[in-house]
Every structure is written in structure tokens, then in C-alpha cells.
């Protein structure tokens, strides 16, 4: 997918000016956040926190053993009848998919929601090869009609209001205008049905791969993924290498936090644990199931101090909790993943220089870490990425200024002189329009001004008067 992360500030300006976007995102993220609180903590705060830590440990254990676990997954999946292959990058992944489709003379592809396929720009490649590809997740279907990428990990069309979606259906599919959400959904179902039936290849991602049992796990609420993975004769699953976990028991733990954190459900409507293609004697299911493990930069991340970012289970809770995301939406982040996890993953996967503003797109409030079901220390990573920006000289434009500042703060005398200078300067320029970068403060906010007398001056005077009162 095209990366526009360098333009975060300009993109977020557009988003902030878009009242529809802000109200749609605020409404949906707040609702998801509140539902999560109930679902995760209804037993007791201790239960919610305990299961969160258990999930964090399951995912970290998997990451520690990732190379071995991938080999184990390959053999258990193969033993179950899956065709397993590997793709080092986006181009190779796209090519593998195209090869498999050609091998089976596929023409119509039904697709279940997958962020990885967004990452590798799969749809554009399929369309360029004259294949028809239909996104079947309702949200994805809508944004595909509107020719835009998803703006949230699990709620791709979170940035649109109901009225905007109605207009898209009317414009693109000649829907009879209605404001009834139920009618709009029924209309989409009807439209999608023929694609489900006609598709000869289904494409999905995966929430988890269980190495122990050789299973592919997919959770969903609309059932579209089950249609994509069972009706066509060929099913291709694209899976990031970080999705492998050890055991079925780990899956039980992780699924509980995934659904609770993502949608506030104890269980999604559909839970699919796929254990291979149709077997002898079975009357349905695809004859061929391919799992393509995609690296696309993940091994490089694995080798750094940011490996923990690979623990992400793509629940979207950090996006819902992030006050920056809530105000600017996902598209402002310029690439596949928005919100705090995007501010970390985009620089890691696309290169720091191609995502320089993102580590700064956070007030470091810590909500993301607080809600993360696997306890990824996102604020720590954002801080470390900021340090990388300076150390690797990608963005160190404040170096001189902060060096001077540090030199001042290093000496109490210089500090006090500096404070006096600031007080004097304030008399000259006032506090309405502060100079330099501080003008960005007064553009939006009033500045209270420096006090005529500093605390340390007051303290000195107090000490002097105490000494007078109590001569020693």
C-alpha cells in the first residue's frame, strides 16, 4: 500500500476539519472502549488484569520461540493437508497468490478482511491481473466501493457516518435510498450473496495459527469469512509470521482478550478453527487450502528492541483508547495501521525516514498500554523511536535548541538568568503571540505569562525573614 505517513500533520489537519469524520470516529471508538471495559472487567478487575497478563505471556512465549514455532507450524499444517509456502516480502506474497489463482483458473475472488493484504497491496495486484476481487466484510465492502483503504484495524469504515454510507450505496449500487441501517445491511447482504456463491477462490487472513494442532483461526461477526473459506474450492490464507502461537490452550486465552478488547464481546459470533481442506467423505469445504506465511519486514523487527511490537493481535483497542486517533482517524497516519500501534509499526516496517512524524503523533498519555490485551509498552516504543529519529539524524531539527536549553538548565545560575530574560522578554513582546515555535502555543491557547517573582526568589526572601525572626 502507498505510504503517506510523512504527511501526518497535513492529513490530520484535513481530518480535524471534517466534522462527519470526527463525530463518526468519536462515537464508535467511545462505544467500543466502553464495551471493552464491561466485557473485560465484569467478573472483577483482577480477573480482567490476570487474563490480560496471561495473554501477554502466551504471545511473548510464542515470540521467544518464533523460528522453531514456525517450523513446527509448517509441519503440523502440512500434516493436516494445508499447502504451506513462504513470502519474504510484499511482491513475493502477491506473486504467490497470483500463481495459486492461475493454477486453479480462478476469476472471481471473495475476500475476508485482512490487514496484511492491505499491507502488501493485494487487491490492486489482483485487479491488474484482470481478476475480480470483492471485499465481503461489510465495512471493507463499503470502502472498496468508495475506493479507499480501511481506517481502523477491525472497523474499517469507522470514519463514515450512516448517511455517507447510504450515499455510497445509492451512488455505486443504485440502492433505493433509505436511512434505516437494517435495510442498508439487508441490501448489502443481498448484493454480496451472489459473489459468495460465484467465487472460485476465497482469500482470508488469520487471527492465529496454532502450531500444536496445525490450525488456522479466524474470528468474525458477519460470517462472511466463513463463506470465503468454505464455499470456494480454493482458500488462500495470508498470515504474518508473528501470528503463530504454541497451543490450543494459548488460543483459548488469546481469543478471550482479542474479542473482549476489540468489540467488547466474550466471543465473536463466528469462531473458526480450520484444520485443513475437505477430507474424504466430507461434503463441503475447499479442496485446496493454502497458507502463505508473509515476512514483509517482520524478521527485521524481530531482531531489534522493538520485537515486542510483533505481539500485537490486531484488536484495535489502542486505537479506540487513543485521544489522538479519536480526533484524527486512521487515514491521517498515512499507511495501513493507524493509532498508537500504527505509529510504532509504520516506522518499523516502512522505515523511520518514511514515517518520521508518527512517533511524535502521541501525547504519551499511556492509554494504549493500559488497554493493550498483550501489554505492549507502546509509549516506551514511541519514546525509543523518537530517540532513534535523533540518533539516526532523521529528524534532529531541535538539536541545537535543546542543546542550548540543556546548557542553561545544567547551571542554576544560567537557569535563573534565563528565567529573568524570559520575564523581561515578556514585557517587550507580551504573551499574546509568543515567538518562534511557541507561536504554535498561542495560536490556539492563551499563555499565562511568567510570574513577576519566581518561587526561588520568594523562597530566598522567606529564608531571610526567617533568619531575622530567629537569629541563631
Amino acid at each position, binding site marked *: 500500500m502507498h505510504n503517506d505517513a510523512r504527511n501526518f500533520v497535513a492529513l490530520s489537519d484535513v481530518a480535524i476539519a471534517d466534522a462527519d469524520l470526527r463525530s463518526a470516529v468519536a462515537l464508535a471508538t467511545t462505544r467500543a472502549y466502553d464495551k471493552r471495559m464491561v466485557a473485560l472487567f465484569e467478573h472483577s478487575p483482577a480477573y480482567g488484569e490476570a487474563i490480560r497478563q496471561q495473554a501477554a505471556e502466551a504471545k511473548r512465549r510464542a515470540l521467544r520461540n518464533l523460528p522453531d514455532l514456525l517450523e513446527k507450524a509448517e509441519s503440523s499444517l502440512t500434516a493436516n493437508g494445508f499447502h504451506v509456502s513462504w513470502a519474504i516480502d510484499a511482491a513475493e506474497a502477491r506473486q504467490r497468490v497470483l500463481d495459486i489463482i492461475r493454477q486453479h483458473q480462478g476469476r472471481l475472488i471473495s475476500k475476508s478482511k485482512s490487514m496484511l493484504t492491505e499491507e502488501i497491496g493485494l487487491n490492486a495486484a489482483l485487479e491488474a491481473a484482470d481478476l475480480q476481487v470483492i471485499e465481503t466484510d461489510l465495512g471493507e465492502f463499503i470502502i472498496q466501493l468508495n475506493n479507499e483503504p480501511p481506517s481502523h484495524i477491525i472497523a474499517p469504515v469507522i470514519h463514515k457516518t450512516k448517511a455517507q454510507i447510504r450515499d455510497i450505496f445509492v451512488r455505486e449500487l443504485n440502492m433505493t435510498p433509505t436511512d434505516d441501517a437494517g435495510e442498508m445491511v439487508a441490501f448489502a447482504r443481498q448484493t454480496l450473496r451472489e459473489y459468495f456463491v460465484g467465487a472460485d477462490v476465497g482469500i482470508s487472513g488469520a487471527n492465529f495459527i496454532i502450531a500444536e494442532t496445525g490450525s488456522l483461526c479466524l474470528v468474525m461477526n458477519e460470517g462472511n469469512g466463513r463463506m470465503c473459506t468454505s464455499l470456494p474450492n480454493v482458500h488462500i490464507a495470508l498470515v504474518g509470521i508473528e501470528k503463530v502461537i504454541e497451543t490450543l490452550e494459548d488460543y483459548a486465552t488469546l481469543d478471550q482478550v482479542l474479542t473482549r478488547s476489540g468489540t467488547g464481546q466474550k466471543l465473536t459470533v463466528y469462531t473458526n478453527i480450520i484444520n485443513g481442506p475437505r477430507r474424504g467423505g466430507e461434503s463441503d469445504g475447499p479442496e485446496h487450502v493454502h497458507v502463505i506465511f508473509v515476512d514483509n519486514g517482520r524478521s527485521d523487527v524481530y531482531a531489534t528492541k522493538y520485537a515486542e511490537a510483533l505481539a500485537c493481535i490486531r484488536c484495535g483497542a489502542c486505537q479506540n483508547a487513543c485521544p489522538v486517533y479519536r480526533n484524527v482517524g486512521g487515514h491521517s497516519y498515512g499507511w495501513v495501521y493507524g493509532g498508537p500501534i500504527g505509529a510504532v509499526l509504520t516506522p518499523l516496517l516502512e522505515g523511520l525516514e518514511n514515517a518520521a512524524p508518527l512517533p511524535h503523533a502521541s501525547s504519551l498519555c499511556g492509554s494504549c498500554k493500559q488497554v493493550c490485551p498483550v501489554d505492549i509498552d507502546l509509549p516506551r516504543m514511541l519514546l525509543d523511536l523518537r530517540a532513534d529519529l535523533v540518533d539516526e539524524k532523521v529528524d534532529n531539527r531541535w538539536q541545537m535548541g535543546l542543546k542550548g536549553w540543556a546548557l542553561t*538548565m545544567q547551571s542554576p545560575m544560567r537557569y535563573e538568568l534565563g528565567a529573568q530574560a524570559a520575564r523581561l522578554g515578556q514585557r517587550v513582546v507580551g504573551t499574546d503571540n509568543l515567538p518562534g515555535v511557541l507561536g504554535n502555543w498561542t495560536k490556539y491557547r492563551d*499563555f499565562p505569562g511568567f510570574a513577576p517573582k519566581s518561587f526561588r526568589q520568594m523562597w530566598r526572601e522567606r529564608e531571610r525573614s526567617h533568619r531575622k525572626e530567629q537569629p541563631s
Partner: protein
Amino acid sequence: MGLPERESPVGKRVSLFVTCMVDMIYPNTGMSVVRLLEAAGVEVDFPMGQTCCGQPAFNSGYRDEARTVARQFLRAFANAEVIVIPSGSCAAMVRHEYPTLFSDEPEWHERAVRAASITWEFTEFMVEGLGLAELGLKLPTPRKYAVHDACHGLRILGLGKSGRVLLDAVENLDLVSLKDADVCCGFGGLFSVKMPAVSDAMLGEKIACIEACEADDIVTGDVSCLTQMNGGLSRRKSAKRVRHVADVLAEGLQETTDA
């Protein structure tokens, strides 16, 4: 990463780190802290060598510059028995960041760990440190306040309810709730000038909650967040303001002392 364990500070002299913003912009808030500590029978000392904790540089990724400033903090507080800071954010910098900031410099690391293990945020010091929930305070006139939880105090230090506990015990003070009290005000240090429009959008949401709240004014534990919120309230011509918890508490002290 856990926070270092602390010994009981009861009976020890307190060295006040007033923070650079309080020193230069809100000196009266610093005096409120001193008066409250002294009213609680605590001996207060103000090390003159103090400047800033280094957080602006640290949060922007300039670790060398942050270390330069942090060393000055460690020098200034080398002889402190207990450090009290009227800011959750600066206290979190010392408690949470200093030890890792100096992980490659054994001598400074030791000093950083020591500082981290004697540092308290002001309300936390009163409630958790001294075990004082009730300061015997009374406001001159009845007033309604609501608390905004500043992020670093809440999520890094895990401050919980110490500010509310102190406020709740004040006579004539009616504590009401603020919607989304734990959502960031959009300050974020240099974030507020690096991404001013985003910061202002966040501030706008916070101000909508403040306006809708039945409190006369809002109380918080960090002058940085307070500056952001008051900057926005003032620009939007609101009658409400955000006050530092120490200033609100100290008002009750005046009444008690005068009576």
C-alpha cells in the same frame, strides 16, 4: 518496568523539587505546597541547585540533553532524604525514567535509582507516604470542584485516588465528577507545539467536558496540563478554570489558620 520500592518517609526532612514551570509561572502554587507540608509538621528544604527534570528533551528523543539536565537534578538532590514534587509528570520522569536513562553509566545509575526510590508526587506523599487523608481543612466559602486525572500520575505512577482523598476531606468542598476525567487534555509537552492542531482538538474535547460539568472549577495535579486547559478555557472565554490541587487545599488551610 516496575517502579522502585520506597521506604516510609515519615519523620524525614522533605526536599522540594518545585518544577521549572511552578518556579517561573506558578510560584504561589509552590508556596501552597510548602504551607501544606509545614502544616503537616514536615520540615521542608528547597535545594537551590534545582532547575528542571529534563523531561522536555527526554520526551522529544534527545537523550543526551535529557541526561545533562537530569545530572543537575541528581547533583542538587544528592543529600535529599525525601523528594516531593507537585507534579505527577515530573515525578514519573524521576521515578520511571531516570534509572533507565542512566543504565549505561554505573555511577549515575546508582544515584538515579536512589533518587527514584525517595521521590513522591505531592498528594501521594501526603496520603500514601504520611498516611494523612484528613488535613483538617475548610474552604472560606462552599465550592464545587471536579478532578482531572493527569495522565502520567495516573498511568505511570498509578496514583489512584490520593488527590480525591485529600479534596474529599475538605469542609465546604463538594467533589463532583468530570466526564472522561482520565482522558488526556492534549498537552503532551512539546507535542502541544509540534502538533498544535491535534493538541487543540484534544483540548476541545476536554473543554466540552469541563463546560458540561457541574463543578465551578477543575482540580488537577500538574501545572503543565493546567496551563494547557486554562489556555484553552481562557481563549474560549470560559468562566471556569483549572487549579492545582495544592492551591485548592491551601485555601482551606488559610481558613483553618485564621479561625
